[in-house]
């Protein structure tokens, strides 16, 4: 199966393959693709609840009451969209999305609309039914490698891999210690994990912006491995050309939807509200 989206006004055509790969073509290859009115992928927050207690949480997530109308809200937002306007995929997050009692229903709703659901988890709520539903419904998952939750995330990774589920690891990068930690994780999980996604700290919520030791990171990675990916906030660093990456302007292809408030932002680390869906 191939899904196709075309927006000539953005010089954009994209193909989404059954293995989860998306290929984009600029209709005029001499010009760049510009911001899409209808994003290719969404990041969707379904809850603010999380027991991870990360002192650097940019969402300020904490134990909270779940919003119980998320399935209805999800349908209201996405079901009116034509196939061309629907995103290819959604990354669900939070808070801890797997803690929400209606999480699987949202995944099912997403799948029923022809959109591939993925999610990020801290690994604290992994169960056999969740693994089965993930295998049945999702394109892939990412496990956050929070140092203080190591036993949870390592168990979760083992469980996902045992089910042959597409698994990424999210690694937060800031100072030398964080880079050393990533290097160890890379050594331990290389060849078992699809992508090691490096994410810088973002000064938002409980997180204070930390300087990225870019020089040390560059020294710590040999060459430009195809299984290391960079989050959008690395964009200004990547422009030095050290890593052979496929660059495009951050936030032109995606948006962030908070299902609790139904507010849409350029990304989860942006406080610039674009609109509120009513």
């Amino acid at each position, binding site marked *: *199966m*191939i*899904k*196709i*989206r*075309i927006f000539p006004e953005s010089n954009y*055509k994209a*193909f989404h*393959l059954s293995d*989860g*790969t*998306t*290929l*984009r*073509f*600029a*209709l005029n*290859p001499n010009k*760049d693709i510009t911001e899409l009115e209808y994003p290719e992928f969404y*990041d969707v927050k379904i809850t603010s609840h999380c027991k991870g207690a990360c002192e650097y949480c940019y969402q300020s997530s904490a134990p909270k009451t779940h919003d119980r109308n998320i399935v209805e809200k999800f349908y209201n937002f996405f079901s009116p969209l*034509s*196939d*061309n306007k629907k995103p290819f*995929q959604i*990354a669900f997050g939070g808070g801890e999305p797997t803690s929400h009692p209606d999480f699987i229903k949202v995944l099912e709703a997403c799948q029923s609309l022809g959109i591939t659901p*993925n*999610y*990020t988890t801290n690994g604290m709520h992994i169960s056999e039914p969740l693994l089965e539903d993930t295998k049945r419904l999702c394109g892939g*998952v*990412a496990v956050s490698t929070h140092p203080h939750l190591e036993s949870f995330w390592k168990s979760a990774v083992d469980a996902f891999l045992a089910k042959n589920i597409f698994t990424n690891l999210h690694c937060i990068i800031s100072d030398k210690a964080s880079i050393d930690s990533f290097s160890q994780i890379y050594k331990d999980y290389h060849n078992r994990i*699809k992508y090691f*996604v490096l*994410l810088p700290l973002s000064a938002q919520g409980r997180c204070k912006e930390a300087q990225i030791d870019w*020089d040390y990171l*560059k*020294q710590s990675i040999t060459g*430009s491995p*195809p299984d*290391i*990916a*960079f*989050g*959008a906030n690395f*964009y200004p660093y990547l*422009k*030095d*050309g*050290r890593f*052979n*990456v*496929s*660059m*495009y302007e*951050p*936030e*032109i292809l995606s948006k*962030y939807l908070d299902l609790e408030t139904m507010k849409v932002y350029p*990304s*989860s*680390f942006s406080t610039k509200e674009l609109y509120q869906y009513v």
Partner: protein
Amino acid sequence: MAKITVHSTTSLITNSSTTIYTKSDCSIEPFKALINEMLSLMGIDKTCDDIFDVKIVGDEGESKVWDMVFDNVYNESEGTEDLLLPDGEPDEEKITQLLDDVNSGKIDAPYWLEEIKSCVSSNSAGGTSLEITTKDPKYENLAQLAIEFLYSTEAVEGEHT
């Protein structure tokens, strides 16, 4: 023979960040997978490898970087003195070696090279160019159809199974 430019590719997106994947992952294999699925949709019992030779052709961004480095050396810009031959001409072998070493992570880019790369990166439309040739002349029409399909804006919106 045809040239296709893949703007970018991504795998599954699992986080809020518009993840940027490495170029080596955004070239031939995903393109072949796309062609294979297209052939399957057309009911053609062939694979991309049966019909086409696909290879990456010179990266335009890298080519621009090389040219700009050469110009900097030629103009004896500060910091580039070591890349000159005794006769004052740019040493092309040394320039290539320097870029290879920087790109492979063996050494850090000198400040002037970082500036060049940054300049090229911010002015580039990006993409990876692929050269596609048919293995047999009988596939020429099929190749043309596939390429037209890639860039067509008509009657192919939405989902195709």
